[in-house]
């Protein structure tokens, strides 16, 4: 049985767990702990401490694992471990919380430094009234025009599929361009 891996990363409460939950055939394995910080508790009730882990069986011979990184900065030591051997990664950004954009940029740059693999950025919560427009998010994140920035609603399976497919198309394009070693 062959296995491949994708990593879903992004700031705290960007929607990483929901993203994986939308497509995983198993219940997302999550280690829940009580939030220790009052400000984090104000944002959401539960958070992952170690990592999220989801699975999609492709066929008898191949399985795709989806790993979600812990969102809080104090767990960033896990990022390097989780990013080993990944096919590519998705950076999730909460479109309704511009105060997280700077952190999202830092996470993006950190992962790019870890491994030169393809990636896409998903602007999550695009169904909310106070979500920033996609192009405004692009400007705020200072993304290169070549970087794919995709609208996303992490609780909507079709939306999540589109993001995963765009990452896979990027991986294929890079392979066809002969950049992969």
């Amino acid at each position, binding site marked *: 049985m062959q296995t491949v891996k994708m990593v879903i990363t992004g700031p705290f409460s960007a929607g990483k767990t929901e993203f994986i939950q939308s497509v995983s055939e198993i219940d997302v394995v999550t280690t829940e702990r009580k939030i220790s910080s009052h400000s984090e508790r104000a944002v959401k009730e539960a958070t992952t401490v170690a990592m999220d882990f989801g699975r*999609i069986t492709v066929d008898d011979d191949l399985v795709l694992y989806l790993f979600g990184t812990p969102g809080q900065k104090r767990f960033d030591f896990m990022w390097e471990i989780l990013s080993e051997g990944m096919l590519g990664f998705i950076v999730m950004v909460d479109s309704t919380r511009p105060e997280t954009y700077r952190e999202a940029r830092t996470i993006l740059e950190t992962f790019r430094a870890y*491994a030169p693999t393809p990636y896409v950025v998903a602007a999550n919560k695009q169904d909310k*009234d106070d979500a*920033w427009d996609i192009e405004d998010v692009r400007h705020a994140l200072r993304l290169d025009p070549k970087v794919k920035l995709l609208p996303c609603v992490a609780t909507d*399976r079709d939306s999540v599929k589109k993001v995963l497919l765009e990452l896979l198309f990027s991986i294929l394009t890079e392979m*066809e361009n002969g950049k992969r070693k």
Partner: protein
Amino acid sequence: MALRGNLRDITFTQILNLINLAKKTGTLIVEGPGQTAQVSFREGKLVFAQIEKEDSNLAIVLNKAKKLSANQYRTIMQHGSTISDKELGLMLINAGYVSKADILLSIQQHCVEIGQRMFTWMEGFFRFENDMLPPDNRINVRLDLENLIIEGSRQLREWEQLQDEIPSLDMALKFTDRPGADLKKISLSVEEWRVVSYINPKNSMHQIAHATKMSDLEIRRIIYGLLQAGLVEIIRPIDQAAAVKVRSFPTENKEEQKSLVNRLINRIRSL
């Protein structure tokens, strides 16, 4: 489609850049320290700016720009305070006191000064009201944002450069080993001496900032100067990020890798 947030997360320079690139029309309302600013744009150009609670009618703007004499200004304020800026402007041009160019340049300068003040606002809620235009009775200008953005960027660059040079205040400092260098003979400012007096490998820069009651920006600025002068060095942590193994496919064969990705694509589509 809400463009709103807080200046501590998105700077005023970044907002201007966004408005410029997206060629937005509307009004940016910013609640700064004890005051609120309204800056209006048309297709990405600045057309109007004012600080609420600050009277900035045309007479005041022209007086500040020294386009009106003291007597002219006094007369206008006494007798012409009820007429609109546009009417006042026409009257002054017809009377030969100012030219149209004088008026436009003065208003532009006024808008630029408001923008420059707003660059110093590091915190405050902002929102962009699409299609909201300036009051009808005010004269609009048409100012390219590039120069304003450049100036704001310069300030932002300083902050970012300082953050790049000194990313973490959890590090400590020590004096460099410079044979012959005597710190007492070096000319430093009062603030720099205060920082120097705390330099010790046991004290983090955070602790020095706290002891000297300096902000993150101020302490970085001073330490950067000391670093550039070669007086101190940062004691860095030993751990470095190791390179992650690139191998992400279970096979080295390129065709098999492509086939694998195509299988993944087909599977995701079928979900």
